[in-house]
Structures are given as structure tokens and as C-alpha cells.
């Protein structure tokens, strides 16, 4: 039960911070709240028994990807005044309520007797080891392909970011 309580706590933190990410005008604040969301989700992973996922979440997601965001914000030196306002919000309220209702009903209907019972016993205690073995045996090719993907991303981002583009046409 304690775990469920913590689950709710972190869920609320994650959702609140996520709302902040999309509503705050200051991009650095948004980035920091994104870190909060990510860390709260990492806590949820720990509660779900996925230690390694939590570690990679904090290490790579919060520690590296958001750093990149922060750097770019500071690089472009985007102050508050450069951030555009929100687009029309009224239809979002409608959409949001509809979607929430639909999703909750759907999840409820789905979960009645359809989801498999949680098979906790088969998950061992040494999470890192198990993930490693799965990754390096069954997911061998995706793993190697992932490295290729990273390579391509690095090359592409350097090409895009380094090369000075044409002067503005109509801005």
C-alpha cells in the first residue's frame, strides 16, 4: 500500500511538472520541470521494479538530453519575450475532457479480465543483469542498429547545425 501511495505522489509530481512544461513561458523553467517529470517517472520505474530503466532515465534523459535542450536555449538566448503565447485553449478543454473520459472508459473495459495477471515471480532481483542478457542476446541486432542510429544522428546534427544556411527569405 505504501508503494501505491508513493506511486500517486510521483504521478502527481510528474503530471504537475508536465503541465508546467507546456504552460510556462520561460523555456529554461520548462526544461527544469521536464527534468522533474523525468525524475518522477524514474521513481515510478523503481516502484515498478525496473531499476535499470530508472538509471538510464536519469542518466541519459535527465542528465544528457535535457542538458542539450538547456544548452540550445542558452545558445539562442531565448528570453521570456521571444516565446509566443498559447494557441486557442478553449477547444482543448473540450478535447481533453472527451479524451480523458474515453481513455478511462477504454482502460477500464480493457482491464476487465483481458490483461494477463501480473507475473511478478518471473522477474528476478538482479534487474541490470537480466536487462543486459536480454539486450545482448535476443535484441542483438536492434542493439547494433541503435548504434548506427546514434551515428547517423550525430552526423546529421553536425551537418545541420554547423553549416550556415541561406539568409532568411521572408522573415
Amino acid at each position, binding site marked *: 500500500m505504501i508503494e501505491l501511495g508513493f506511486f500517486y505522489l510521483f504521478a502527481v509530481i510528474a*503530471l504537475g511538472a*508536465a503541465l508546467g512544461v507546456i504552460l510556462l513561458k520561460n523555456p529554461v523553467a*520548462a526544461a527544469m520541470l521536464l527534468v522533474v517529470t523525468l525524475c518522477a517517472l524514474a521513481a515510478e520505474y523503481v516502484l515498478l*521494479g525496473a531499476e535499470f530503466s530508472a538509471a538510464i532515465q536519469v542518466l541519459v534523459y535527465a542528465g544528457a538530453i535535457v542538458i542539450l535542450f538547456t544548452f540550445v536555449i542558452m545558445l539562442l538566448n531565448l528570453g521570456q519575450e521571444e516565446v509566443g503565447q*498559447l494557441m486557442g485553449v478553449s477547444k482543448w478543454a473540450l478535447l481533453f475532457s472527451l479524451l480523458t473520459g474515453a*481513455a478511462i472508459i477504454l482502460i477500464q473495459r480493457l482491464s476487465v479480465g483481458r490483461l494477463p495477471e501480473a507475473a*511478478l515471480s518471473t522477474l528476478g532481483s538482479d534487474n541490470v543483469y537480466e*536487462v543486459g542478457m*536480454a539486450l545482448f542476446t535476443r*535484441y542483438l541486432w536492434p542493439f547494433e542498429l541503435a548504434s548506427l542510429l546514434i551515428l547517423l544522428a550525430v552526423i546529421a546534427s553536425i551537418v545541420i547545425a554547423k553549416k550556415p544556411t541561406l539568409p532568411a527569405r521572408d522573415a
Partner: protein
Amino acid sequence: MSSIIPIEHSLILAFLLFFIGAAGVLIRRNLITVLMSIELMLNSANLLFVAASRQVGNVDGQVMMSFVVVIAACEAAIGLAMVIAIFRRYGNIKTEFLRALRG
């Protein structure tokens, strides 16, 4: 580690996160915030993977989650590179300047 968190909770949390992310993509005019909202959506998928992994009882979901992190890293890198390029070209990063698809 012993108590069970019902998967419905994770599903609803993931769904809400996804929606917040999607809303962020749609209502923000700042490209960087749009990218961050995409990260939120990816995270909701991650949460689903991890929850499903626990439900099914093997670590495949967690492996997929680490691949999603890799993809998110690549997406962020290229997306931000494009933000820089767009900034150089237009002098700002508001999305309403990107209207090449106008019919």
C-alpha cells in the same frame, strides 16, 4: 518491491502524460517547447513499456524502453540542430513561420 501496482494506474498516468505532451506540441509556438512536449509523449510510451514488462513478467519492455531512450536522444539532437538552423534562417523559432506546407 513486493507490492503490486495495478497496471491500470500506469496506463492512465501514461495516457495523461501523452495527452499533455500532445497538447504541448499543438498549442505552443516555441519550437523548443514543442520538442520538449514530444519528449513527454515518448516518456509516456516508456512508462507503458516498463509497466507492461512488469505485467508480462520479462524484461523485454525494459529493453525496448532503453531503445526508446536512444531514439529520443537522436530525435532531440537532430530536432535541436534544426532549431538552430531555423533560428539562423528566420531569426526566431516560432512555428508559424514554418508554413511550407501551405496549400
